[in-house]
């Protein structure tokens, strides 16, 4: 995500009183207006974090949000109260906690004293794989300007990557990833977006996300890689669309190049699956690659060229994991 558009300059991580004052002298009104509108919006969120007192006392989200914004500005200006550690402005919940006097500073600043017990050392071969995926994903997120690209890709490839967890178990490190039920994150789950229709929508979107990843990840072996990247991993027209379509025009030549690229990548996947001596890392990479080559991925091409693309698309069989 391009952080350059962030509207307000950030406070220093551990701001002095003078730095806070200087900031407020210039931006107090903007900050207040931001908090007022953002907290009002947070009342509609499924993960509402505003205390019941604040929500109920004022009758309407409008009044409650304005009250919270007032309280935050008042606390920032209060000479008696020190802001030990400044959260990013987008981190509404941490600011809210501070506004009601909870100590946020120590909790997030170091992480040193509150590392959960579940911690594992991964085998050596995992690191380069994870780093390579991560690098590609972040680059794609940046270029397409889809802020949730990483989360979508991770979700779409979860079944393919599950092999990692299986292998880790087999390698005798114990069973690092316990069942979700036993995990600390469970209270945060609200099952929003878990309906069947949501899953279908996610799957469609995920396929194009994975295709974007594939093109960027395998750019070294693709013909016309630069042209493909410029369009399909370039800025999208509307990041909320399903799937998000490239902003740049797609002509017939480029559609053909995409088909050729998909066939080439599929050949690689196929070969890796057949080769007995392929390393675990190579197998994982191939499975993740295959996720972007489903027929659903062709939806990334505008309708007028879709039949052309569909005709040449590799016949990828998706196994049930």
């Amino acid at each position: 995500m391009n952080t350059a558009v962030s509207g307000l300059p950030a406070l220093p991580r551990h701001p002095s009183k003078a730095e806070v004052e200087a900031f407020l002298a210039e931006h107090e009104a903007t900050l207040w207006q931001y908090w007022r509108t953002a907290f009002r919006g947070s009342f509609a969120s499924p993960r509402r974090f505003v205390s019941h007192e604040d929500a109920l006392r004022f009758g309407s989200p409008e009044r409650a949000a304005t009250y919270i914004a007032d309280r935050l500005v008042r606390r920032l200006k209060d000479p008696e109260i020190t802001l030990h550690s400044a959260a990013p402005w987008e981190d509404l919940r941490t600011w809210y906690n501070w506004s009601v006097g909870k100590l946020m500073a120590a909790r997030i600043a170091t992480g040193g004293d509150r590392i959960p017990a579940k911690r594992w050392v991964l085998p050596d071969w995992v690191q380069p794989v994870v780093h390579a995926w991560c690098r590609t994903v972040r680059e794609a997120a940046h270029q397409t300007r889809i802020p949730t690209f990483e989360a979508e890709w991770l979700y779409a490839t979860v079944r393919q990557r599950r092999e990692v967890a299986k292998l880790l178990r087999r390698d005798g490190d114990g069973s690092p990833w316990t069942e979700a039920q036993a995990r600390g994150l469970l209270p945060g789950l609200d099952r929003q977006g878990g309906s069947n229709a949501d899953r279908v929508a996610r799957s469609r979107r995920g396929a194009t996300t994975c295709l974007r990843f594939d093109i960027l990840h395998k750019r070294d072996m693709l013909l016309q890689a630069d042209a493909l990247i410029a369009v399909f991993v370039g800025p999208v027209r509307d990041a909320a669309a399903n799937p998000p379509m490239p902003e740049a025009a797609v002509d017939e030549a480029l559609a053909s190049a995409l088909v050729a690229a998909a066939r080439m990548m599929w050949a690689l996947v196929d070969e890796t699956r057949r080769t007995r001596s392929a390393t675990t890392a190579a197998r994982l990479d191939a499975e993740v690659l295959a996720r972007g080559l489903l027929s659903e991925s062709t939806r990334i091409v505008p309708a007028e060229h879709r039949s052309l693309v569909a005709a040449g698309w590799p016949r990828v069989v998706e196994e049930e994991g």
Partner: protein
Amino acid sequence: MNALQPDLEMLRAYVHGTLDAEVSEAVRAWLYTGATEDELMLYEALVQEREEARAQLVRAASSPMHSKIAYALHRLGSTLAGGGDALTRALQLDGFELLSRDPDDELATGVSSDQTIDVQLVLGADGAFVVLCVEAGGAVTQLAEGVAVAGERIHLPGFQLEDGDDEVVIVALIAPGAAPRPSDDKPTGAWLLERVLTPPSGWRVVHHTYRRIRFAP
């Protein structure tokens, strides 16, 4: 390489980039190797939350004049708004005109984008008035100006929220007797802000915000 399964607070801190580099790296390794579908959905929701907040931040920062005026009006509060002055909405229903005073305790009224907002100004005491509209971008336009007696209803031209406008603030400045501003210069944000921050003696200010209602998709 270490992997670390975070709790909710830590995952949120990861999303906001406030973890130590080493811890952050370990959480990332968990996201890429161990997180389940449910956990990844939660991760996505947290990223989404951050992006929504960021969009609000960008919006607020893009029109500092609007923020300044809204904040100044808020701090001015209702101390000067009493005395019977009021901004009310006129609703047309089957040819009958209903007057609805926006509830005193409401700071803002929600309107949908295709709705025409008809506002009337009622003065509590004789005076000269000017009514200004502060758009979301910070632009200030004049809706009406004149002299009126107590209790008189002044109909303001109806307006709609334009695309991209999330809220408009209607401000009425009322001066006893004298005209609130020379009528030959264009109203500006700075002009309005100055009078809201330090109202000349005897002036009254009433204001109301109209905000776009958003329906969840």
